[in-house]
Structures are given as C-alpha cells and as structure tokens.
C-alpha cells in the first residue's frame, strides 16, 4: 500500500513537472516565434515547475526522499531556478527589449509583468539568502523566516504572473500546476518548523 502510494505520488509529481511543458510544446503560438522567444518562454515554464519541486524537496515530502538529501537537491534546484528565471528574462529582453525594460521599471501596461518582476527579485533574494547563510550568522529561526517570507512572495508573484499571461502554456495544465505550487508551498510552510 505504501509502495503504491509512493508510485502514485512520484508519477503525479513527474506529470506535474513534465505535463505543462509537453502541452506548451504543442502550442500553435510557437509557429510564429523565433528560437530565442520560444526558449525564453519555456525557461519560464521550467521555472514554474521548479517552484513546485522546491518546497517538496525542502520538506522531505516526496516518498523515499527525506529532508536531508532533499535539501541538498533543494540547493541545486534553487540554483537551476535562478538560471531559468535569468534565461526567461534575458531571452525576452533579446526578443523585445522595450517591453522588458518597461516591466523591470514597473511601467509595463500588462499587470502580469509586475508580478513576474516581483517574483524574480524574490527568487534572487531567497537564493542569495541561502548562498550567504553561513556568512550571515543569522539565527536559524530568523533565517528560516526570511527565506520562507521570500518564498511566499515568489509563489504568489509567479502564480499570478503565469495565470494572467496568454502564452504557450495550456490553460488547464497551467492552472493545475499553479494550484499544486500553492498547495505544496502551503503544506510545507505549515509542516516544516524545524
């Protein structure tokens, strides 16, 4: 029974990560986009998928992957998330610089841009806080509060950003992924108080 549960959870997790990317790969919009624009869009989708993985890794929620090795992986995935966000923004910059500059200056006409930019800075800050953990000498309680607070901003910002964008992602798979991201983050935030 436990084995079946574990198989189901891992299958669901893998489907939640791969499904939205596979569905986006079939989007008709891709026909009218160049390679850089396509790659930057997918970098954004990958980033959202990694935002789902992060709390599950940190919380040791996935069966067979307890918190200790999970957190080592959490650091690597965090670095990959920073890279994905950078690729997303960088690729969009190459595609249409004025639109990205507007977004970064919070002057964009599209509200989702601001949410994306807020989430981006929160991702960078959360990663920086993790990278400097040893040097900052914060008490574990303070450090955890800071990291968690930034993560909440990341999750809210990126979910709203994704939901408001009309892009390559499928509407349903995007909504499902967003719900899972919020649910996983909420569960781990509540569960992990160590």
């Amino acid at each position, binding site marked *: 029974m436990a084995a079946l549960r574990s198989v189901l959870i891992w299958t669901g997790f893998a489907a939640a990560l791969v499904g939205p990317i596979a569905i986006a790969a079939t989007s008709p919009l891709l026909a*009218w986009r160049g390679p850089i624009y396509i790659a930057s869009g997918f970098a954004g989708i990958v980033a959202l998928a990694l935002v789902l993985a992060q709390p599950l890794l940190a919380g040791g929620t996935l069966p067979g992957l307890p918190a200790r090795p999970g957190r080592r992986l959490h650091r690597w995935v965090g670095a990959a998330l920073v890279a994905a966000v950078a690729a997303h923004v960088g690729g969009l910059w190459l*595609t*249409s610089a*004025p639109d990205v500059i507007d977004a970064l200056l919070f002057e964009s006409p599209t509200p989702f841009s601001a949410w994306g930019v807020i989430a981006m800075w929160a991702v960078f800050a959360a990663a920086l806080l993790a990278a400097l953990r040893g040097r900052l000498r914060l008490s574990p309680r303070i450090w955890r509060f800071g990291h968690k607070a930034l993560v909440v901003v990341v999750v809210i910002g990126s979910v*709203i950003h994704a939901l408001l964008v009309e892009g390559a992602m499928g509407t349903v798979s995007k909504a499902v992924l967003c719900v899972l991201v919020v649910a996983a983050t909420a569960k781990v935030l509540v569960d992990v108080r160590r």
Partner: protein
Amino acid sequence: MVTVLYPIMEFAMLSAHFWYPEQYGKHQDKTGGIPLTKPQATRRAFICAGTTLAGATFIIGASGLLVPAQAQGLAPTPTMRGGANNYLPGASVVSRIGGGGFIMSGTVRRAGDGAPLAGIRIQIWAHTTEGYESDQRSHGATLTGADGAFSLDMPQIIPAFGQAHGHLAYEGDGFKTVFLRPIMANSKDKSLSAHFVLQPV
C-alpha cells in the same frame, strides 16, 4: 478548481487596478468610437478584464451614459503605456500589411469639437503571424477618410508578451503625438479598433 483560482485572479486584477489605474478603459470602445477616459470607464474595463459578468454589464450601461456628456469638450486621447514600444518612425502608407486577413480600424477626431479629421496618417504595427513587432515588414500606415475613419488590412495579430495587442501611432505636424496600444478582448478576434482624439499644437 476554478473557485480556488478566482480569489487569486481577482486579487491580481485588483492589484493591477491599483498600479495602473489610468491604463484601463482607453481601448476598444466599440460602441461610440470615443475613447473612454473617465474614472467610470476605468472601472468598466477593469471589471471586464475578468471578474464578474454582471458587474461588466452594469458598468457598460453606466459608461454609455457618459458619451453624450463628453462630446461637449472632447478630451485628447493620452498616449498609452508601452504604446511606443518597437515603433519604427516613418512607416509608409500601404494598401495592406503583408498578406492581410485582420482589420485594424478606428477614427481620428479633433479634441474639443470632436470634428472628424481627414487625411491623417496612422501608423500601425503588431506581432502577427508574419513577424515580430520590431520587424520592418510588420509596420505600415494608412490615411483617414473624409469621415475621419481609417481601416488597414494586416496579418492576424497573435498574443505576444502575454497579451494579444496592437500598436498605433499618430506622429505628424499639426497635432501632438499619440501612441495607442489596444488589447484584443479575444486573441482569436479578426479585428481590433482604436480611436484617436488629437490635440492641435
């Protein structure tokens, strides 16, 4: 699931309204051809953007009442945020951009008395099935007729940077420059309109 998402989206819309209050309601007035710039119009487009149908119906009804009042001293259309992005000045007047199939139309009137302006050159560009906004071939211009109306056949606009939208510009002698960035209510639409009220200089 939808019920879970609604509060999130509603929150997003609210915050968008908070950040860009002047941004909403200046596009796609398909009824009177007058860009709606009053606060009520702001509220209308904000609600149309995706919260409640009932609210939208109510506000559209309310904004309809504003149109006659505005005709007295017609206010100039302000430039929209992001309207000038990827603008390539001096697009030539063409009978069609690329292969066509999508209609961009609108009207141009003079601020104050609302008189239709003939022979005004309106430049149009967008991300379409035939190219990026920044591609020269995505740009073209058209002239208004005696009734102040313009219409240009262009390739289908597709969502770019998260939103299906077009760009229009008035730049020339006699009136202040205006850049518009209308949003398509549905990215499958085959047409889009935008209206200019120009301020004489």
